[in-house]
């Protein structure tokens, strides 16, 4: 995260490859399921033997004996509807919920977050010298309407996408944050409104962040969790 601050996001998880290295983010949407960006994974249906989801710690490289860290192998992946750029990952065993690990709320289907709603992104990705690369960083950003956002992105923003971010300062998601959450505070709860996807550049001025709009795919997510 460029321009963020160290913080707590108990639903943000770190995806680890077979060498144990963080490569993308994700969000805990139930005790057994994570949502992330499809761009982080090589294919939809192959087994992800050796890949793990780490949670319960704010450190990028926690000590091996960190009592709060939960490292749970990923058992299965299911790709989202075509052009959704989403992937759901099923954990081999349910995560234990506590003050450091929590499930985020999902929005109602087709829900459009009001402009100006307070949101945040979280991740262990690059800070480009703006912060501490070793801990989870969080950046506050308000929702921007697609109409306004399209003005900055030359009409490229789709209805299945959501924009957020301040335009006056260089801040936003960066490498290895992809797949992580855009969480918005609604009705006293944090709700997953967006998923961070790879874009060109990190936190550029006059370029609000574009995220996958989760409410467009929440029916699919619920179906995947119910069916499996």
């Amino acid at each position, binding site marked *: 995260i460029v321009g963020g601050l*160290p913080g*707590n*996001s108990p*639903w943000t998880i770190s995806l680890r*490859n*077979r*060498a*144990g290295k963080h*490569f*993308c983010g994700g969000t805990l949407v139930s005790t057994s399921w994570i949502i992330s960006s499809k*761009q*982080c994974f*090589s*294919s*939809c*249906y192959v*087994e992800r*033997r*050796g890949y793990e989801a780490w949670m319960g710690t704010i450190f990028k490289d926690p000590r091996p004996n960190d009592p709060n860290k939960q490292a749970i192998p990923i058992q*299965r992946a299911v790709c989202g*509807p*075509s052009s959704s750029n989403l992937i759901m990952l099923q954990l081999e065993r349910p995560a234990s919920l506590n*003050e*450091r690990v*929590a*499930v*985020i*709320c*999902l*929005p*109602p289907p*087709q*829900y*459009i*977050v*009001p402009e100006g709603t307070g949101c945040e992104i979280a991740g262990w990705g*690059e800070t*480009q*010298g703006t912060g501490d690369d070793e801990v989870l960083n969080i950046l506050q950003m308000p929702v921007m309407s697609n109409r306004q956002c399209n003005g900055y992105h030359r009409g490229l923003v789709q209805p299945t996408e959501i924009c957020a971010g301040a335009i006056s300062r260089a801040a936003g998601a*960066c*490498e290895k944050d*992809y797949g992580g959450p855009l*969480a918005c505070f*609604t*009705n*006293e*709860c*944090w*709700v997953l409104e967006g998923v961070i996807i*790879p*874009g*060109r*550049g*990190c936190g550029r001025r006059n370029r609000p962040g574009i995220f996958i709009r989760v*409410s467009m795919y929440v*029916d*699919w997510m619920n*179906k995947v969790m119910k*069916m*499996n």
Partner: protein
Amino acid sequence: QRSPLNDYHRSRGVQLQTLHRSPEGHVSGAEECAIRCTDDLRCRAFNYNLQAKDCQILSSTSQMEGTERHKHIHIDLYEKKAYVRECIVNNGATYRGTVSVTQSGKTCQEWISNVPHEHRYLPIKFPEKGLDMNYCRNPDNDVNGPWCYTTDWTTRIEACGIKRCENDICVLCNGEDYNGFVDRTESGRECQRWDLNSPHRHNYQPDKYRDMNLDDNYCRNPDGSPQPWCFTTDPNVEREFCNIQRCEGKHKLKEVQTTTECFKRHGIGYRGTVNKTTSGTPCQPWNSQVPHQHQLTPENYPCKGLEENYCRNPDGSEAPWCFTSDPDVRHAFCLQIDRCEDDIEPEDCYYGNGEMYRGSVKKTRKGIHCQKWNSNTPHITQVNHKSHPKANLVGNLCRNPDGDSHGPWCYTMHPKVQWDYCAINTCKGAHEPPIVDPEEVVFDSCGKRDDRMFRNNMLR
């Protein structure tokens, strides 16, 4: 610190059944079973039951007639490597393979016979030399390797010309596909088995890396090193490269499709010209060591397309990447390159959400055949004729019985893919779904966090 299992080739989940069954005995582990087999001259293999810890000594290997390999989830078959290898180690004195023709094509004489050539190497006199049938052997440690008496009256003895393991299968590129039988490093140290964590603990468990052929203790290259390597049985030397002959001619990646506009799977075949990381940092040229020093040079990796400063994936990472020109960021992915679309061509279209679709498509978007709605194989259906009697769930046709907003779907015949959307697109003119009033939002046991806990921790 070598394991007695180092002399054995392991086949997971396989039981060898032979005509003559020996009794099973309880052991403390596979290593004890290996010691028993090694001590017994007649033993050539053993079945090891991981669950019951039972050891069954066998006088046959799966290459011999009268044996059958059966799948068994609790049993691993271990066979003496000498009987499995098709190449020789050193002078081939331990070779127990089945080649029975000399290098000029003459058939070997049976060791038990004295016709046409009388000789002293009778199996009964030298039971430890493995003088079976008319197979090439090296009972006298001849420097030219295994040999035999020939059935040609005019040629008494001829070498069989069996290749040494390091020359048998050559290394293409940096040897990530190497699956030969070399199990010693370039300094002569014996390799540690990949399925053991002693003397060196490591991450490369064969179960985790099923696509890497991490068999026994053979040299392999699971991490994109410049050449095959292994952990050694020497506690003081963690890992070393193996000295295996490189293939002659042009080195080309096996079974990798090259792409330029997008990347497939991990992007190992990506040969496009994107040369910036996702965040827009220019890449460092692969043939440069500034600002980052590395071994991934075009010379070390002749078939990885390491041209200019283009994003590539020479080491099996998750996606194409590069060393960056920023001294503070060693490497970064180029995830702004799209993944190639792997959906098959849509075969029909639907209106609305496709609830009324009554067409005949019966394949998913990835081309997997649909399962019949009235079948429970391979997946037990929750949505079927009984639950949705009016949804026209005919045969294995794509339908949308539950009003899925993303269109018709079906259960699939792939055991690991329970269901998926079908190879059908929306027809032109389909309407957008309505939006929901924000007032309707209600949440209960989710999305709560205690920010005081984090603040207190940070203050402390």
